[in-house]
């Protein structure tokens, strides 16, 4: 017990939690934006892979780190556009299309990686984002220590929480996005484009997912390898429900999940001799299922989620 408490009050633990949760923050915001407009995007898992691979590849080819983030965002947007066209104007099943996008984006990323680097045994490394030191913030006790270990991408993720919240709740565009996910007819009756709003939201949300993927290869690690996304996309889908489609709660959920994950790594080293490591690997997922059971029952879901809309049908 003492050990756990000591872990929980250490700066390095929370710094690691925030680092682990960064891709989840991007992913959960992206998924939330898609779902607020009424479209479930199960392409997220594959879009993570595509963002991780394309961002890394761009940097490796000499595009620079910021160039890599942009490429990852564009890659996400591209797969988001495929999903949006299939599910919005064509009205196909969002589940099937999303899973299809995941399979397609994953395999295409692996294919491009292998084509670009046919003969390497160990993946080549890039120079990733470094932690940035912001003078005033690093002077704050505890918090300064935690934030001092984060890279620009984590700062960007936190900034995106605010931007997504602001756009959704404080601007006319955000109200329209929420309305289109709730009752598309309300938007159509005002002469706004249901398709435009939904496609736009899915593309923007998918771009965020792509950037989240890029964090893995450009900040957390410095190379791309197969299987590195490892279910993070699915976790984001669950976190959206946990957050009842609210950006602030989404941040909380992502950090909590990150903390569970950081805790299991530390517990493995503490008591790993007595308990099989797999138990700890499993712990964050089990805990998130329990968190969902508690939180999701009263979730305020977008009423038109999963429901395609066609012009002229009422």
């Amino acid at each position, binding site marked *: 017990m003492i050990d756990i408490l000591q872990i929980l009050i250490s700066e390095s633990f929370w710094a690691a939690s925030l680092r682990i949760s960064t891709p989840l923050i991007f992913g959960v915001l992206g998924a939330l934006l898609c779902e607020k407009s009424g479209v479930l995007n199960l392409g997220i898992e594959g879009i993570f892979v595509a963002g991780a691979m394309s961002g890394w590849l761009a940097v490796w080819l000499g595009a620079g780190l910021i160039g890599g983030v942009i490429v990852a965002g564009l890659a996400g947007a591209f797969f988001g556009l495929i999903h949006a066209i299939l599910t919005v104007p064509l009205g196909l099943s969002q589940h099937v299309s999303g899973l299809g996008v995941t399979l397609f984006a994953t395999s295409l990323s692996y294919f491009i990686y292998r084509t670009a680097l046919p003969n390497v045994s160990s993946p080549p490394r890039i120079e990733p984002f470094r932690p940035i030191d912001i003078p005033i913030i690093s002077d704050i006790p505890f918090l300064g220590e935690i934030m001092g270990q984060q890279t620009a991408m984590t700062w960007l993720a936190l900034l995106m929480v605010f931007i997504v919240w602001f756009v959704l709740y404080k601007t*006319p565009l955000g109200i329209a996005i*929420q*309305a289109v996910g709730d009752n598309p007819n309300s938007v*159509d*009756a005002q*002469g*706004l484009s249901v398709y435009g709003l939904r496609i736009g939201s899915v593309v923007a949300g998918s771009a965020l997912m792509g950037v989240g993927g890029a964090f893995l290869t450009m900040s957390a690690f410095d190379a791309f390898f197969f299987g590195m996304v490892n279910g993070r996309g699915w976790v984001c889908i669950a976190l959206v429900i946990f957050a009842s489609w609210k950006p602030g709660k989404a941040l909380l959920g992502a950090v909590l999940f990150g903390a569970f994950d950081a805790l299991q790594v530390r517990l493995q080293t503490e008591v790993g001799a007595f308990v099989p490591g797999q138990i700890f690997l499993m712990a964050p997922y089990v805990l998130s299922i329990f968190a969902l059971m508690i939180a999701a029952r009263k979730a305020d879901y977008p009423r038109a989620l999963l429901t395609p809309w066609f012009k002229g049908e009422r």
Partner: protein
Amino acid sequence: MSAQKVLSLRSLSKKFGSVVANDDVSLDLYVGEILSLLGENGAGKTTLMNMLFGHYLPDNGEILITNKSNQMEQLRLGQPQAAISAGIGMVHQHFTLAENLTVFENITIGVGSLWALKTDKKKAQKKIADIIERSGLVVALSEPVGRLSVGERQRVEILKALYRDARVLVLDEPTAVLTPKEADVLFDNVKAMTDDGLSVIFISHKLREVLEFSDRIVVLRHGQKVGEMLTKDADEQSIAKMMVGESTLISKRVNIQVGNPLLSLEKVSMKGSSRRNRLVDISLKVHEHEILGIAGVSGNGQSTLAELISGLQKPDQGEVVLGTSTVKKLNPKVIVKAGIGRIPEDRHKDGIVGNMTVAENIILESLSEKNIQKFGFLNRGSINSIAEELCSSYDVRGPGIHAHARLLSGGNIQKMILARVFSRNPKIILANQPTRGLDMGAASEVERRLLEARKNGSGILLISEDLDEILRLSDRVLVIHSGVLTEIENMDREQIGLMMAGESL
């Protein structure tokens, strides 16, 4: 009402494929006037309004509307944005509100640029407050729409139109979902707004309302304008005739002595899943040759009552008596065996299997009968001839008996259900909202069949929100409110209306 025109539709025509939805329809609307647009389903009312609102592009014709300086000018056709900015507001029958958003957000949605970073909330709130004061459409702005009653949601829809400076307001069947009292409030509000210079096009097929409420009436039939008159010169018979093209529509109820009791509920109580579907200590008796009407606004326990009598739910307390014997184990099988025919409330959801053919749907309750199956194999030949015969005698129109049932229109689905129910000569009929959403032709067919069954000795439990229908058909009337049944001594329209709204007398 003044003599000044605000809107003028000229020779509008619209075809869908080979179907003529509107044929050379012209009408004028004057400032401060309430114009009723009457017609059966499919007569072209909705198409006409959709052209006015820019959802459809007319094949022919033009629309003129007065601009700010009182000049008539051409409305750009086929563009909802143009219609909105010209001052045309529409309140759809199915509300176009986002339930998770607040009233304020719903009212202001889409006004101004989507890309603005900030909205002037104060200014918008002041404008809405002004409109509320002038029109009397009171509603709390910060409340999420999902928590409002139906009547309040309708007010939000109207406020939405007025907030966009609507000078012409189209109300599409606004009272279909309201209690009689809520409807009266709505009419008062609309009257107050027309005094302020608003012009209203009122779509309905409740003749009583039209006669009471509007200044002028235009009737459409088969896409053409077939009549136009001042309301003070009109009466129910003449309009009905114009709408349907025949005069003997309303079936006459003859007095018949009721027979033995067929179905009784004795002191039945059910908790239900919420207040909306509980039943509190109710008792009723349906006799041979009797229609027992249950009046009430939906969501007051009718669904639970219907499910109980269909055998889908068991009572927590009390007894269900069929004929003279108490039912021990209530389940749907017992009910079908006892000869109870059911016309369900939601015909699309509970009345048909959409992806099965019309023929299959018609024989669905007779599966065990000899001419339907032999040794467990369906007798297709006999099924088809039964279906053909029933479809023609019940006038089920559509793409034929081998088409999927979901392809039929609402009225024809209901006629198909009638064919299924009445062909089994049920002793007891449970008719739950049997004419909801049907046009006059189909509705009067349903009423005629119910009266005929009554004459032949059936006992009918009629659950309906349409008070006029209850009064036309029923021998006795009970009012249901919050799961409590109250017997009505004398059939007084106003009194029943008040009781439906929950006022004790």
